[in-house]
């Protein structure tokens, strides 16, 4: 009996989408740890429960994506397990998708936002500090006499220009 066209199409789609999903899940989790390593300030957002949820959710997602991949392989090869595994994958993936979206929107995102707000206000001490090169004791630092040769030196702009009677 010839394989129905939609079985082959869904099999190929399952293999491609699962591969892409597995790749991006791993890249996403690796990105969190890389960010913690490279930018400790931003990495502070990912601590405790936020970090646990941000790592655990993609890891559970990997299980459903592995099911998707194997069901795709089964479907392309015309094996019955591809269909039954695919049906299990579809139901569990729908369930997981809704639960993961709820956890992300009601727990992870608000907690990350709060952590990021606390982080930015404590990093600057609550108010923006002047850059290190600003000398607070030098009143003339930003008040030159306009001739472009630095702070007030007694010589104004007109002292540098030739007068009307000079050659």
């Amino acid at each position, binding site marked *: *009996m010839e*394989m*129905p066209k*939609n*079985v082959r199409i*869904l099999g190929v*789609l*399952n293999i491609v*989408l699962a591969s892409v999903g597995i790749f991006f899940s791993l890249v996403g989790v690796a990105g969190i740890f890389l960010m913690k390593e490279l930018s400790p300030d931003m990495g502070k957002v990912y601590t405790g429960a936020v970090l646990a949820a941000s790592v655990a959710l993609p890891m559970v997602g990997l299980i459903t994506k592995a099911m998707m991949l194997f069901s795709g392989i089964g479907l392309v090869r*015309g*094996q*019955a397990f591809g*269909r039954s595994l*695919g*049906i299990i994958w*579809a*139901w569990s*993936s*729908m369930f997981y*998708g*809704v639960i993961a*979206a709820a956890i992300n929107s009601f727990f992870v995102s608000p907690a990350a936002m709060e952590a990021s707000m606390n982080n930015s206000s404590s990093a600057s001490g609550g108010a923006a500090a002047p850059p290190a090169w600003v000398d607070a004791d030098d009143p003339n630092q930003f008040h030159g006499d306009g001739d472009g040769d630095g702070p007030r030196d007694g010589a104004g702009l007109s002292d540098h220009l030739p007068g009307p009677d000079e050659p």
Partner: protein
Amino acid sequence: MGLAMALGYQITFLVLMNRDEVKLFFTARQGTVS
């Protein structure tokens, strides 16, 4: 958006997998294997 697309794909998958021709194909394949 992503969730809606995923749900759409999963529902489509379930609907197509429950078509008679698909069920018949896999039943026939299982029959020849066992």
